[in-house]
């Protein structure tokens, strides 16, 4: 017993926590023994010495407890250092292992960086668009209130009387404000600029709890009828960029659409409006609308004029969104009874104001969900590929692992080492991914999401939340691709490894690798099907006949009511500009119009048609544009019956219009519309001709009845209008000359926008193009990864069976036989993966249907193409290494062993 103790103690350092109490006891016992002997030696009797020794020692129990406490603290610290040093060792081992296979490390880090980086970018968009609440006081107590459209969209604009009724009748909202966006021209000295303004009710800032950064913001008293309506509040961003943060601008005058407005103050820096992608340069009063646009004075009184973009309410104390919703539905029912003509079947929608995406959120949300889904699939695929590579590596490193096992390293430690290696790879991937994500975000800042929101306008960036997401994704990826190989490495049978067995064993690894191949194939198929659906959509969109010729058309938006042009002279601005532009070399024809096809923002009105009885709930709403005579000719939009405008049409004769095919078939179903009569309010128009249907406010052809009214006839394109110029060649090159011509004719005229029709169409296709591009890129990456995975598995299986195969060849096995034998390992997982992938794609396709055009998510050719492409890649990746096995020289193979 004593001997054994001595042996143990000889090796003992003081950290053996189990014996800690014992250790202290022994130490003190020794002290007592020595002290007793000393006392006895000096002549004390043994019993007395024993007592005395304990007396001079002091309170033994207390001292022992104190010493044990000190030791316990010490050993905790030692335990931590011990773990840290073990971890450091694992990291060193992992790094050494990776240095030994730099190709593997590079491939692994690169695929992970792509996967994690892509996911991070999309998540930063999700964070900025979906998860970030507007910077206002307790946004969780705010709700958006919408009036439904007759077409069934639950979130449409409201009229001013609607707003007043909602606000005054509601008890669940303590207050409610209205806002609506508008493009206006601002002139603070120098050239007039076109900027975004938001017209709001005076309680807007107080309801949102916003304090001014300088001066003051709008306050409820500003709606008192006697107060000056010509006041505005600058946005912080515009104050800084346009006025350099100069405080003297407060109290000064800013001309908005030529009307002098007083600058009251500056909004707080964090607040840029409630609508994403619509950050206004300043806010002004809703009731100052009259100043800007006098002929729309009835807009504040008319219930059928639904021009207020959004309503926001603050919930009263104790009220919930559900309660407010129920109350709003009751109010809606009351209004339907009181004012059946203009309310009709309209209802009210109430949403919690959780993000800055207003109105119909579906398109942008599902677009983001789709992107995130694609990238998650890609990352999953990258992980399964890495798992496969790790497995292959683990198998070739079996002897190394075996040696370590034989040296007594624990299996748990072995698993941990493998996981640490995975974490090292993943962390490197995560770091590169973050850099990549930063670069990508900068690169795609100009890319438009659905609803025309540019990515840079969303404020997406790598903030703490996004970085946390990247970190979690990194760790998740490490676990995904690391834990299976680690577990299998941990289960490595010792004897097998040391005997260097080549043919048998590793069956668990082989099964896992087959399953991984199946998984990769199916993920790649899903991505490929998606890619081909979006490529098909792009092709269909580009092929679609818009009815007019979009090539060689330049567009310039001008506003002659601004920029100090005398209102009397404004009417002559258009004709003079047209005359000047038409004379430019390279210009075929030019025209003006309030609206142009494709671009959003037409004028709507209600009409009556002689000889047509509207159905009880039918809205005879059309969109129209006041145009000059050469409008249809310039767009090359054909007149299919009747005649085009003639120079006399703008004169004093009978007012005429040209209607489009959609309007003609809707309200003249079996009559000739030419010669018919259309009433708009007090005015009546004779239909002179029918134009080919085209797309308005988007790319969908023939959805809106449309009417062209010739300029003159009591209506002139007096507000902002578009100058349409058909050119002989590249219209972009003509833009400077056109601008120059306008500048020379009217130096102060505000030019809002210059571009081409083709660019207009391209920008509308941006989301689909983004999706097609992304899915194709990631689909190809997926196919490549799957190909590499299959190739790796077959090569490995060939290497393992080399001896066996060469014996077979030597014994006269046919090449086909050898190929078949080798290929067997991958063909069935490939087949299973294909089936699962195609089924999965079919299952997921309904989620992208709304982004597709001219085909649906079940488009058979897309599935066929994806399946074939993948099958070809997979079979090639199998066949190449298998053929090499079959052509092996048997003698060499045997000798090599």
């Amino acid at each position, binding site marked *: 017993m004593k001997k054994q103790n001595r042996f143990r103690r000889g090796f003992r350092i003081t950290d053996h926590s189990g014996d800690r109490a014992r250790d202290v006891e*022994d130490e003190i016992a*020794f002290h007592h023994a020595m002290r007793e002997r000393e006392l006895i030696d000096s002549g004390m009797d043994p019993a007395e010495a024993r007592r005395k020794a304990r007396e*001079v020692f002091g309170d033994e129990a207390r001292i022992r407890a*104190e*010493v044990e406490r000190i030791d316990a603290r010490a050993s905790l610290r030692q335990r931590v250092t011990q773990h840290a040093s073990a971890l450091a060792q694992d990291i060193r081992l992992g790094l050494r292992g990776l240095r030994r296979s730099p190709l593997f490390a590079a491939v692994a880090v690169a695929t992970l960086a792509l996967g994690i980086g892509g996911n991070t970018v999309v998540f930063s968009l999700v964070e900025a668009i979906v998860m970030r609440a507007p910077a206002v006081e307790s946004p969780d107590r705010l709700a958006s209130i919408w009036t439904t459209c007759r077409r069934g969209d639950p979130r449409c604009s409201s009229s001013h009387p609607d707003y007043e009724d909602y606000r005054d009748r509601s008890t669940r909202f303590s207050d409610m404000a209205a806002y609506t966006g508008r493009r206006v021209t601002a002139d603070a000295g120098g050239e007039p600029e076109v900027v975004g303004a938001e017209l709001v009710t005076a309680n807007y800032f107080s309801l949102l709890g916003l304090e001014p950064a300088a001066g003051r913001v709008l306050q409820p008293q500003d709606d008192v009828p006697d107060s000056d309506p010509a006041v505005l509040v600058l946005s912080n961003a515009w104050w800084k960029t346009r006025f350099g943060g100069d405080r003297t601008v407060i109290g000064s005058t800013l001309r908005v659409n030529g009307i002098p407005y007083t600058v009251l103050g500056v909004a707080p820096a964090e607040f840029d409006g409630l609508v994403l992608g619509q950050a206004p340069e300043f806010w002004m009063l809703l009731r100052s609308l009259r100043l800007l646009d006098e002929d729309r004075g009835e807009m504040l009184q008319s219930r059928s004029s639904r021009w207020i973009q959004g309503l926001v309410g603050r919930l009263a104390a104790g009220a919930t969104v559900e309660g407010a919703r129920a109350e709003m539905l009751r109010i809606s029912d009351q209004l339907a009874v009181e004012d059946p003509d203009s309310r009709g079947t309209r209802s009210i929608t109430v949403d919690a104001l959780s993000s800055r995406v207003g109105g119909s959120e579906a398109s942008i949300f599902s677009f983001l969900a789709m992107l995130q889904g694609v990238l998650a699939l890609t990352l999953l695929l990258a992980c399964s590929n890495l798992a496969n590579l790790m497995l292959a590596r683990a198998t070739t490193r079996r002897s190394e692992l075996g040696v370590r096992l034989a040296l007594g390293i624990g299996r748990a430690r072995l698993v941990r080492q493998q996981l640490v290696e995975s974490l090292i790879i993943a962390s490197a991937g995560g770091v590169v991914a973050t850099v990549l994500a930063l670069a990508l975000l900068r690169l795609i800042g100009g890319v438009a999401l659905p609803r025309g929101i540019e990515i840079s306008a969303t404020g997406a960036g790598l903030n703490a939340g996004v970085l946390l997401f990247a970190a979690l994704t990194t760790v998740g990826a490490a676990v995904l691709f690391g834990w299976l190989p680690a577990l299998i490495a941990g289960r490595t049978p010792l004897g097998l490894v040391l005997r260097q067995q080549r043919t048998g064993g590793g069956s668990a690894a082989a099964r896992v690798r087959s399953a991984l191949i199946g998984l990769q194939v199916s993920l790649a198929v899903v991505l490929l099907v998606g890619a081909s659906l979006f490529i098909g959509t792009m092709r269909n969109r580009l092929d679609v006949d818009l009815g007019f010729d979009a090539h060689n058309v330049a567009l310039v938006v001008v506003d002659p009511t601004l920029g100090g042009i005398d209102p009397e002279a404004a009417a002559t601005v258009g004709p003079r500009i047209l005359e000047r532009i038409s004379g430019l070399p390279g210009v075929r024809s030019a025209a003006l119009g309030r609206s142009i096809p494709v671009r959003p923002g037409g004028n709507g009105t209600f009409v009556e048609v002689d000889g047509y009885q509207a159905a009880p709930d039918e809205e005879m709403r059309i969109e129209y544009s006041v145009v000059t005579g050469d409008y249809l000719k310039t767009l090359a939009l054909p007149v299919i019956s009747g005649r085009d405008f003639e120079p006399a049409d703008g004169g004093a004769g009978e007012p005429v219009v040209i209607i489009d095919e959609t309007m003609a078939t809707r309200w003249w179903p079996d009559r000739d519309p030419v010669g018919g009569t259309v009433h708009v309010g007090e005015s009546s128009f004779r239909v002179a001709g029918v134009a080919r249907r085209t797309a308005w406010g988007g790319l969908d052809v023939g959805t809106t009845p449309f009417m062209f009214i010739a300029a003159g006839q009591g209506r002139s394109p007096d507000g902002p209008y578009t100058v349409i110029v058909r050119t002989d060649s590249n219209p972009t090159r003509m833009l400077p000359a056109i601008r120059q011509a306008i500048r020379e004719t009217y130096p102060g005229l505000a030019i809002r926008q210059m571009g081409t029709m083709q660019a207009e169409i391209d920008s509308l296709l941006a989301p689909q193009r983004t999706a097609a591009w992304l899915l194709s890129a990631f689909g190809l990456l997926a196919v490549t990864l799957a190909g590499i995975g299959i190739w790796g598995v077959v090569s490995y299986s060939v290497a393992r069976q080399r001896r066996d195969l060469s014996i077979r060849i030597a014994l006269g096995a046919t090449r086909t036989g050898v190929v078949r034998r080798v290929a067997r390992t991958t063909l069935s997982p490939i087949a299973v993966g294909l089936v699962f992938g195609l089924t999965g794609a079919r299952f997921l396709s309904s989620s992208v249907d709304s982004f597709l055009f001219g085909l649906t998510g079940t488009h058979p050719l897309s599935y066929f193409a994806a399946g074939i492409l993948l099958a070809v890649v997979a079979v090639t990746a199998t066949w190449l290494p298998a053929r090499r096995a079959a052509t092996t020289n048997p003698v060499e193979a045997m000798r090599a062993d």
Partner: protein
Amino acid sequence: MAGSDVYTGTLELLVLRALREEPLHGYGIGRWIRETSGDVLQIEEGALYPALHRLEKKGHLSARWGQTELGRQAKFYRLTTRGRRVLKQEEGRWREHAAAVTAILDGGAQ
């Protein structure tokens, strides 16, 4: 004065000093202090052990079980390099302190 209290810091200094020449076990350290001070400094002997373990924890001492000259198992303490450095510092500080106190006392006597 039969004995005087020894403060914790001072005790640690004495322990370090006791170990300067050679490793000792706890009893040996106590005895060395007692005899070197000519029995002036009376330590509660048990108080040595918390001090020893604290110093070990701080890394000023290292400890290991070994055999005494008489063949008994005892836990021996040895100064580490760090302990040696600390001893030098603390010794200097003590001397300064003592000199200052002495100077004050001398000044007061004149």
